[in-house]
């Protein structure tokens, strides 16, 4: 099977994630979309690793997962804290820095 289809899939997932980050208001959904983009990137890494026949991409994918795990820990904590204080998970409500 041609490995390039995986790349198309990765691009599609990344695009869905990017659009989701921009258009959705719910912080949880935005967060999930970010995860989607990271995983699309992982998929692309792994595919390139396959195409080039070495392990560099695979290693890179592990790093991405570690970063994603850390990000989830910090990000969810922030979302929970904001929800607690503001009773809302909408990212548009948290626009106080401007003032």
């Amino acid at each position, binding site marked *: 099977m041609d490995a390039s289809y995986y790349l198309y899939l990765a691009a599609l997932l990344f695009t869905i994630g*990017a659009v989701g980050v*921009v258009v959705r208001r719910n912080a949880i959904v*935005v967060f999930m979309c970010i995860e989607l983009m990271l995983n699309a990137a992982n998929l692309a890494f792994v595919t390139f690793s396959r195409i080039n026949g070495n392990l560099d991409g695979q290693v890179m994918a592990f790093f991405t997962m570690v970063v994603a795990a850390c990000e989830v820990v910090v990000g969810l904590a922030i979302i929970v804290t904001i929800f607690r204080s503001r009773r809302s998970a909408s990212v548009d409500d*948290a*626009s106080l820095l*401007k*003032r």
Partner: protein
Amino acid sequence: MTSSLLVYLIALPLAGAAILLAAGKRSNSWGHLLGTATSAASFGVGAYLFTQMLGRATSDRAIEQRLFSWIAVGKFQVDAGLLLDQLSICFVLLITGVGTLIHIYSIAYMSHDHDRRRFFAYLNLFIAAMLLLVLGNSYLNLYVGWEGVGLASYLLIGFWNQKPTYAAAAKKAFVMNRIGDMGLSFAIMIAFATFGTVSFAGVKEHAHHASSTALTAMGIMLLVAAAGKSAQFPLQAWLGDAMAGPTPVSALIHAATMVTAGVYLITRSNFVFDAAPNAQLAVAIIGAITLLFGALVGTAKDDIKKALAASTMSQIGYMILGTGLGAAGYAFAIMHLLTHGFFKAGMFLGAGSVMHGMDDEVNMRKYGGLAKFMPITAVTFGFGYLAIIGVPPFAGFYSKDKIIEVALNAGGARGILLGGAALLGAAITAFYMTRVVILTFAGAKRWDAKAHPHESPVLMWLPMAILAIGSITSGYFFSRGDALRNWLAPVVEHGHVEEQELLSPEVTSLLALGLVLIGVAIAVLKYRREVADTAPTNVSIFTKIARRDLLQDDFNEAVFMRPGQAITSGLVSVDEKVIDGAVRGVGAMTLGSGSAIRTTQNGYVRSYAAAILIGAILLIGAIWVVVQ
């Protein structure tokens, strides 16, 4: 070592001024005594130096004292140094002598003024600055004193600056003097550019081999300086207003000493003018114009001090004319300066004495018949009067007749014109001075009932009496055996003096005396009868012009002040509209662009994310285009 005494001449009055100004009100009770004492001590030092000088041979009478290295920049080396020679000793004795007398007079004259201590501080400052002016051994040292006397003059004219007109008079004198000071600074620059030195000795040494253009330019600039300080045409307008100062100031600064600084400057620079005949001719012409100008203004003034001020201007015109006549004239110009120092200071003090007795009334039409009430003032003033119109054997006869004689003998049409102007001036002088004396001391009394004229205290009439003795005798002593001329010869005469005789001295004297008598006779005939106590208004156009100082202020206002104000207000609007506009425009632009860009920082995470996304896409697109 006598030369080390030189610095004390200046240091004593300077210390007096410093102490009085620093001590403030605490010195109110003894300030006038200290001020008089430092001036008298300076006179004592001057007299001692004079006797020492008399004891030396002619060739080494001049002494110099180097104080310190003042400016040392590459080739430009100026030492602060003092030079006392036959010319400066005349001035030192005049300044400190007359100055001390006027200090004594002021003790009484200013006794009711609560600011008398400050007055004495300024007088001492003036004496110090004037001594520095005449003792400096280079043009730059002279310049320091030149500015110092300008400052003192400003402070003293505006001494009663609670009156706005007096403060304005002080400012006028200061501003007009600035023009002259510019001339002096240009002359100094020319001297340095041409000769590489600004000391009198250095310039004198190189004056022969300099180009005549440079020398003429320097001479003209020195003339501008002299015109500013000595109230010569066309910078004469400030002197009349300077009478706003207390009368002792008018006597000391605006009659006897400071206004004669221009004569000193030209005489001191004789080596420049002797090598630049055109500049010298300009000096003589300015002198001749001013002596007539001042005399004409003097005929129309009812204010006794302004009449005397116009007379001062006219008499300094004689001196400047004398200095413009070359080697033959310098000595007589200085002689007239010294005799004028006696008789004009004496007359100003007399005018002050009259004002003192008449509640500060200055209008001569309100005087009349004061001789009975103020006999001493009348007699001392009378001696000054006889001296200024040039009746033998009073002082003015010797000095003024000599200037007229030298002017007449200057050769050709020039001699006839200059000499004619001087003769005419003598006649007009006789007229207006007779008018002053008749209006003040003779005739019926015209003063108000509330005035109680009385003779002034001894502290006031004693200086007047001493100056009156000077006005009687000084001319005889100076001219006996050409004493002053021989004394000054080492400073001002180089080479032989050409003697051309148009008229013999006897004929000149008789001619001048005849004209003086005509002037006196006209005044007596005109003012013998009743004099109106207000100035008549139905007078000829010439009288009106003369009352307005020959339109000097109107001319200055129309030609210099108004266009100057127009330029200033034009520049102000350029400054406000163009320069400030540009600055404010930059500010407004920054603010506007800031508030435009601010809308992108809206605090919404999603719009930031969108911006990052678009940016990333654009970046990748750009890279893609480049790689392709």
